Every structure is written in structure tokens, then in C-alpha cells.
């Protein structure tokens, strides 16, 4: 099936959305901001969050009747690409995909929805747990009598969040609860990431938390929100890869050795072309996957598409950011040049929610299951 055979979203709306997001980030200082914020301790800029909220960014996939723009995941991807281009540290994909991805499906009338869309608050989502061998493990964190016990790992945005949406087990099955930052019995260990951000390891000992939702819907919704977030992280990597390539292309056009720009040497040219092709394939594949997810209701098919997107985006970003360092030569290995910021951000985004090998495995399994079901 070719792209024009299927119903397309409004391309013009997406174009306008892209333009306004790009302008907003560029006016704020582009990728320079990422360096400044990293050097200041790895947080984000509250003023930027407010501006993003004013532009409607956080509510992009929330239905209009619930206070969002109702534009779907493809539009979320457009914004994520722009975040990736300037490696903005603000928790855009986290909020759009995970926090609001959970709340808009489980409790659309909760007051926290409006606060998240309005940029007044950031809620990190704590759903994964670390097992004894250090890898991911089955969830065992408990919620009883209004209190949490246990731990959560790989919590993105933990350092600056006002609260935590925690998926825990209870006597009534899985629950989604909200624990305030700084609540009794909550400790947050920050693990520094390659890009300067912090991932949180949370431990709860009788930490008070408010129940937002419970029952069978919680697990399914979590899976859906994780699919969305995976796909959005892929889009963020696409934007990152594109910009990393542009910076590199500019560099090889201007850097001279042997009295010529190094971009006049054929071996450099062919490598640059390969990166460009990789970039374009990733952009088309990821955009198509997000668009198809908007029109798909079967959770297995959506999971397969999200895996397709992340697998491609990680493969492309790995190749592009690493080759970008090589093409920069020695200065690429310094902290002074921005290209390193892109490599470091790509490392973090690739590891988050699964890399390409992991997602190819999920993709293959989902495809086999769908094939068997037919």
C-alpha cells in the first residue's frame, strides 16, 4: 500500500505545527540552551516549559474535549522531532507520551490533566523495576492502605518532577497512584546520564500516595502509553539525527586539509551520502509508523509499529552520531563542539524504552503473533 492510498492527516496543520515549534526553540537559543542547562546541573528550564505549554505542545495528542489539541501521535512526532533537533532537555516526550498518555486514558477528568497541559507541573512516571541482577524485573512494588512500599527504576525526569505517577500492585490488581515529590518515606537516587540528565531510582517505605485508577485497564493503558512514548522517542531521535547530520555536513564543507575542504574527498562524500540516506529512510519510516498508529486500534499492531519506529530510529541515530564524531576528527572528541552533545543525547534516548536489537525482537514476535492469528 502506498502512502497516498491511506487517509492522510492534515499535512498543512502538521507543517504549521512544525514551524511554530521550530521557531519557539530557535528563539530560545537552539542547541546552545542544552549546553547551558547541562552545565547548570542537568535540569530543564521552567520558563521554556511555560512557553511550550502556551503553544499547546503538551496537549497535542489529548482530545479537544479534554483540553488538548486533539492532533494525534503524528503531530506529537512532529514536536518530538523538533525537540530532538535542538536536544532540548525539557520532558516533552515524557509528558505527552507517558504522563498524559496514562491520565488521558484512565482519568481524563482529573485536575492534574489541565496542570500538565498548562505546563504548571511535571509528573514523572515510575513503572519499571530493577531485579537482583540489575536488569528489568517483574513489578513487585505494593500499594496498600494508601501507602507505597518497594522501589521503581529508570524514572525519567525524576529530578525536577513535582510528583510521580506510580504503577503498583494492590489487592485489587494494578493501580495508578500519585506520590508527591518529597513525600514521607520517598527517597530518590539520581543516576547521572550521558547527556547530563538524571534518571531516578525511587524507593518507597510507607510513602503516602493518592489512587487515581485501578483494575484491569491500568496494565493495558500502561502498555499503550509506553507504545506511544516509544514511538515519540523514535521521532525525537529522528530530529536529533537530522540536525547532527546537518552540523557534520557543514563541518566537512568548511574544514580544510591538504588545501581543500575535506568534503571534496570522495571517501568522505560517500560516507556523508550514506548518513543522508540513513536519515531520510529513518524520517520516512518513523513518520509513516506514527501515522499508521493514529489509525490503528489493535494494541498488538500499535506495539509492532512503535517497535518498527524505535528500531529504525536507534539504528540511524547510532550510525549518524558516531560517524559524525569520526568526520569531525579530533575536535569531535572534545566537549567544546556541539556534535558530542548529540552523541550523548542519542545514547540516552536509545537506551530508554529499548534499543534497536530489543525492538527488532519485539517487532518480530508481534508480527509472528499477528500472522498466527490470521
Amino acid at each position, binding site marked *: 500500500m*502506498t*502512502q*497516498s*492510498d491511506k487517509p492522510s492527516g492534515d499535512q498543512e496543520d502538521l507543517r504549521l505545527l512544525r514551524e511554530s515549534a521550530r521557531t519557539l526553540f530557535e528563539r530560545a537559543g537552539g542547541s546552545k540552551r542544552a549546553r547551558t542547562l547541562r552545565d547548570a546541573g542537568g535540569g530543564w528550564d521552567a520558563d521554556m516549559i511555560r512557553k511550550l505549554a502556551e503553544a499547546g505542545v503538551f496537549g497535542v495528542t489529548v482530545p479537544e474535549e479534554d483540553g488538548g489539541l486533539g492532533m494525534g501521535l503524528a503531530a506529537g512526532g512532529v514536536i518530538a522531532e523538533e525537540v530532538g533537533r535542538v536536544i532540548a532537555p525539557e520532558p516533552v516526550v515524557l509528558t505527552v507520551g507517558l504522563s498524559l498518555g496514562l491520565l488521558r486514558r484512565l482519568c481524563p477528568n482529573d485536575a492534574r490533566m489541565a496542570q500538565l497541559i498548562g505546563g504548571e507541573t511535571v509528573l514523572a512516571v515510575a513503572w519499571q523495576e530493577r531485579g537482583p541482577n540489575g536488569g528489568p524485573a517483574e513489578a513487585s512494588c505494593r500499594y496498600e492502605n494508601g501507602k507505597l512500599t518497594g522501589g521503581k527504576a529508570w524514572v525519567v525526569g525524576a529530578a525536577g518532577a513535582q510528583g510521580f505517577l506510580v504503577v503498583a500492585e494492590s489487592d485489587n490488581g494494578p493501580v495508578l497512584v500519585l506520590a508527591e515529590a518529597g513525600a514521607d518515606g520517598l527517597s530518590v537516587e539520581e543516576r547521572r546520564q550521558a547527556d547530563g540528565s538524571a534518571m531516578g531510582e525511587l524507593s518507597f517505605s510507607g510513602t503516602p500516595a493518592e489512587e487515581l485508577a485501578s483494575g484491569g485497564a491500568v496494565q493495558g493503558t500502561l502498555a499503550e502509553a509506553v507504545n506511544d512514548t516509544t514511538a515519540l522517542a523514535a521521532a525525537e531521535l529522528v530530529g536529533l539525527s537530522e540536525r547532527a547530520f546537518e552540523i557534520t*555536513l557543514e563541518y*566537512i*564543507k568548511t574544514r580544510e586539509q591538504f588545501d*581543500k*575542504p575535506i*568534503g*571534496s*574527498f*570522495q571517501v*568522505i*562524500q*560517500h560516507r*556523508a*551520502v*550514506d548518513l*543522508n*540516506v540513513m536519515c*531520510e*529512510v*529513518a524520517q*520516512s*519510516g518513523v*513518520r*509513516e*509508523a506514527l501515522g499508521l498508529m493514529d489509525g490503528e486500534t489493535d494494541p498488538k499492531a500499535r506495539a509492532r509499529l512503535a517497535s*518498527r519506529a524505535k*528500531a*529504525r530510529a536507534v539504528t540511524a541515530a547510532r550510525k549518524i552520531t558516531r560517524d559524525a564524531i569520526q568526520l569531525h576528527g579530533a575536535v569531535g572528541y572534545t566537549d567544546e563542539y556541539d556534535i558530542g552533545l548529540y552523541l550523548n543525547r542519542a545514547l540516552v534516548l536509545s537506551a530508554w524504552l529499548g534499543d534497536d*536489537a530489543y525492538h*527488532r*525482537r519485539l*517487532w*518480530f514476535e508481534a*508480527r509472528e503473533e499477528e500472522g498466527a492469528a490470521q
Partner: protein
Amino acid sequence: MTDWNAMSDADFRKEVRGFFEAEYPEELRHLPHRPKFAEIEHWHRKLHAKGWVAPAWPAEYGGMGLNAAKLLIFYEEQQRWGVNRGRDMGVQMVGPLIIKFGTPDQKEYWLPRILSCEDIWCQGYSEPGAGSDLANLRTRAESDGDDFVINGQKIWTTMAHDATHIFMLVRTDPDAPKKQQGISFLLAPMDQPGVEVRTITTLSGETEFCEVFFDNARTPRENLVGELNKGWTMAKALLSFERIFIGSPSLAQNALGQLESFARGRGAFDDPVFRDRFAQAALDVEDHAALYARFADQLKRGETLGADVSMLKIWVTECFQRITELMIEAAGPDGGTIGPLQVGNVSVDVLSSFYKARPTTIYGGSNEIQRNILSKAVLGLPG
């Protein structure tokens, strides 16, 4: 006369698919080799009677007059059903040049004969010293009374041993300041004493390529198409649509389907390493198709394609090769065996797919040449 372009894309696709499925001879589906005309003549007659031999030609010359969008659908359906392109050099290459640059007499004489396959054409471009550097060609055509006299050699001439005519780029002005100048586009009959054809046996043992030797061969002066010494520009003008067609996902998609059924039958998917490599290849094909769709949409909106369309060819041909290499891997100890391998009710000719994939990165402008073009025309790199 049907106005195909007025139909919806979906209706047109249905129409084309219906015709192929109902009329195309089963034994010719997905032919593993290039057929001689006699082998596909019965199909060509049906196509000719239907008026579908030349989908891209304007209706006034006996074509279907399809716009880019409909043309892509036509080719997609053709490839989907494994319909052989037939001996289409006349339709694809000579016809469009005559339509664009030919005289009224040339159009009247040649075009109907192309459609009916009364004349079967081969393409004389490459020479031993002019492959990627095509403008370096040396075959001479000199004026002699009412004729041109041709001396030189062409090579990689596909199916020349089953052609009645050759269209060629020849040097008509050896003293032109640039080698791209002084080249003309000439038509010549093959059946004459000065033309000798030798087949070239390929790695796969097939003989679809030929060498063609010209030793004082003659062709009437009226067989010059377009202006003298302007052949290079004319030939290049034709390539725009070809460049998306050569990057279409179909070859890789068909190979992937074969790989999947073969690997399943062989139990190769039990191996997690193989599963991952298959997933990589399958996703490479899927994401390429998304990029192809982006260029196709550009054509459908009536825009001209830029040089960046070449990236489709680079990606898909290299991907096609990896897929056929995986077939060999899945075949294990049978990986060197000639002919179809039977697995359950599936039969896959692993080596033939492998061989078929090899020249795709060489023909139509080698992938290295494509990278040169992209680096200069798209990335703006110097030198």
C-alpha cells in the same frame, strides 16, 4: 478512448489488477530469466489488442496516456503479479525519444512498429571503455552520402541476440571540445553484414547480455533522431522517471517474501540470530517503501523529482543483495546448489536470486556513481 487519468486511483488499480490476474499466462509469472520474444509473444498480442503496450505514451501515439500517479500504479500491479516487462526497450527508451525529438515521418514509421513488436529493440550505450564514464564512448558514425557508417563496439547490450534494431549513442564529432558534445542518437538495423553479436555468459550461466561489433555497418541518415551532436542531452532528458522506477521496492519485497517462506520451511527462524537478521532486512524494506512513497507522492502532485531520488536505488539494491545473501545462509549446505530447492510446497531458487541481485548495484549508474551524484547535487559537497 478511455481517459484513465480521470479514474480514481483505487478504481484504476482494480482495473489493472483484474486484467493481469485474468489474462496473464500463469507459466510466465515471475520468470527468473529475461525471455526471448517468442516465449512471451502470446502475452504481447493480448496486451497489444488491449492497447496497453505503452502505458506512458500519449494516447495519440497509441499509448495509454497515463500520468505519473497512474503509471506508478500500473507498474506496481505489474510487479505485484510478476508480469514480465517483455521486450520493452522500444517502448521505454526509443519511443519516448522519438515522440519528444523525432520528425513526423519518424513517428509515423517507427512508433506503430514498436507497439506491435514488429521491431524489437536493444540499447547500445555502454562500451568497453565507457561504463560509468559513459560520455567516453568511442563508437564512430561518419556521414557517407545518404548513410552513416558505424565502426566500434558496444557491450552489455541486453538481449541484442534477439533484437531486430539497436538504438545507440555514437560519436559524430570527435573534435568537440567536451566529450559530452559530439554524441548523437542513432537507430540502426541489426540484420546486416557489418553487425556481429556475441553473447556474454554471466556468472549465473545466462546469456542475456551481448557484445555488438560494428564493422562499416550502415544506417540511413534519416535514422538520426534529434539534432546531430545533441544525443547526450536527449538521452539524459529521458532518465527522470526511470530514476524512481529503478528504486522501486518490488524486487526487494518479492525476494523478502521468498526468503520468509524458505526460511520458515527450513526452520531457520528457530535461530535467534537469523530472526534478528531477517527482522533487519524486513524493516529495511518496509522503511524504504515509506521513503519510496514520499517520492511517489511528489510525482503524483505533479512535481519533478530532484537528484535525491537516487537514494532509493542505493538503499533498495543493497538491501536486495542482503536478502538474497540471507537466503543462501538459510540454505545451509544447499547454498551452492543450482536450481530450485524444494521446501514443503515451496520451491525457491536461492542461487538465481543471489545472482539476480548482483548487477543491480552496477547497472543504471553504479551505486558509487549514485553516491557521487548525491554528494554533489544534493549535499552540495565540493570537488
